[in-house]
């Protein structure tokens, strides 16, 4: 029998095997990365040069609108057009037990017999943004392994779970008839990050009202979305307004018209309208490339990620150099009203700088 790969914890070995197409190695690598294991980070560093090629498509929307069923159908349709495909499906972790029931595979049975499709379920593990903390890293691994399209299904999301907009190139907002009136559409959040809107279950009689409410909300959004509100490039995604004059000027390219968010009707269960969904997703990718937004998105994300890591490392430096004792002492001083919180923190910054200057950190261990 083949040696048990699940015992393998060597990030570089796994990365090598995964690049050769060993699916056990891929699965194991995703686990390491998901667990934040140091070997996972080593593998990510090894694989990173291979990334940046995949089209990352996020699917978001409320619980029960049919995201998993739609992702299943979209994946099948996509497979007619691309050689392989990966799905990352995120479900919520219980805040009480820390456990999770990951049921998205339940509706993805059409993909199970296709060896060119890799499906991975993830628990949100307490991360509130609609995807897990490690979802980006999992997607990075799949990107490096050459999956040209990666579909990411978020936790059945409410109005503020917009993290997917910082991960995906194309965000598909899935709606269903009867999920709320037009006031819901006016609320901030998901509507603002959608690149493609799908009205699923469109065979239902209320679908017509949902469509018109969405159209009205989109028209409204064109006038009101402040550039950079959710996503720095939001202005470029704003659809043109019929008869309202020109929308916000795209920064990248003069000749490419701003992206008009399409609203597509579909019934994932019955299987119609899905090709139009895939067409819209593909058109959006072409638009990103034509308008040079693909590159600027990547630049923006790279900045976000480096800044994110920098913050984490600064956090560690603070923990190591300042420590809980000094922090506690500062808090005591604040409680005694000897010092205000901001001044106390500034004194601790001096402690941090002194620590860095003295080289004490080397003794405390490297990052």
């Amino acid at each position, binding site marked *: *029998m*083949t040696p*048990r*790969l*699940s*015992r393998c*914890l060597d990030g570089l070995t796994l990365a090598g095997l995964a690049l050769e197409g060993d*699916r*056990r190695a891929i*699965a*194991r690598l*995703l*686990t390491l990365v*998901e*667990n*934040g*294991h*140091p070997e996972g*980070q080593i593998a990510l560093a090894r694989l990173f040069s291979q990334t940046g090629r995949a089209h990352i498509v996020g699917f978001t929307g409320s619980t029960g609108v049919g995201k998993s069923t739609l992702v299943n159908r979209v994946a099948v349709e996509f497979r007619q057009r691309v050689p392989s495909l990966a799905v990352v499906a995120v479900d919520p*972790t*219980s805040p009480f*037990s*820390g*456990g*999770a*029931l*990951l*049921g998205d*595979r*339940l*509706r993805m*049975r059409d993909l*199970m*017999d296709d060896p060119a499709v*890799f*499906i*991975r*379920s993830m*628990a949100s*593990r307490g991360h509130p943004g609609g995807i897990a*903390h*490690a979802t980006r890293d999992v997607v990075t691994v799949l990107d490096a392994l050459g999956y040209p399209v990666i579909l990411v299904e978020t936790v059945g999301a409410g109005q503020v779970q917009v993290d997917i907009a910082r991960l995906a190139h194309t965000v598909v907002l899935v709606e269903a008839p009867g999920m709320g009136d037009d006031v819901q559409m006016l609320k901030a959040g998901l509507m603002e990050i959608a690149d493609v809107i799908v009205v699923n279950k469109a065979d239902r009689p209320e679908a017509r009202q949902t469509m018109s409410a969405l159209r009205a909300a989109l028209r409204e959004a064109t006038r009101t979305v402040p550039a950079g509100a959710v996503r720095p490039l939001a202005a470029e995604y704003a659809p043109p307004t019929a008869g309202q004059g020109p929308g916000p000027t795209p920064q990248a390219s003069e000749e490419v018209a701003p992206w008009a968010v399409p609203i597509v009707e579909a019934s994932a269960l019955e299987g119609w309208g899905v090709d139009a969904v895939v067409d819209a997703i593909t058109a959006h990718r072409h638009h990103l490339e034509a308008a040079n937004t693909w590159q600027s998105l990547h630049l923006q994300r790279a900045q976000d990620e480096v800044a994110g890591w920098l913050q*984490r*490392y600064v*956090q*560690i430096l603070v923990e190591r150099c300042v420590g809980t004792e000094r922090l506690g002492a500062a808090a005591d001083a604040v409680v005694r009203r000897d010092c205000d919180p901001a001044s106390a923190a500034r004194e601790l910054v001096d402690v941090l700088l002194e620590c860095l200057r003295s080289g004490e950190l080397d003794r405390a261990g490297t990052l």
Partner: protein
Amino acid sequence: MGRKIRVLIAKPGLDGHDRGAKVVARALRDAGMEVIYTGLRQTPVMVAEAALQEDVDVVGLSILSGAHMALVPRIMEELAHRGIGDLPVFVGGIVPQDEALLLKQMGVQEVFGPGTDTRTIITYIRKAAGSGSFDATTQPLP
């Protein structure tokens, strides 16, 4: 973050009785595990693929149709075929004692019949997951 026990709960074959599988899946969730629930009517290939892609620590098969002697060997074969034949596998359902012995000879670690306390299953899985896969002492990066 660190490590979580990941368990596949699958219902292979033509068997619509998923109450038991759901009760177990929920109990495992409440015990802090991540449960990948595949739903009804899975083929042996689907079960093995899910076990592979999800990198689970333990595989649980719920079979109440009486077809365990036909399904389990094929699932064990498909797992072995994918190089994960050493994954701990347990079966839940209605299995006569002599056949439970045969299943164990095929490599099934435990057979849980009706009335099994979910705590027994949780204890078994924690032990099985600990014996296989990687140790729980992994230090997550910040």
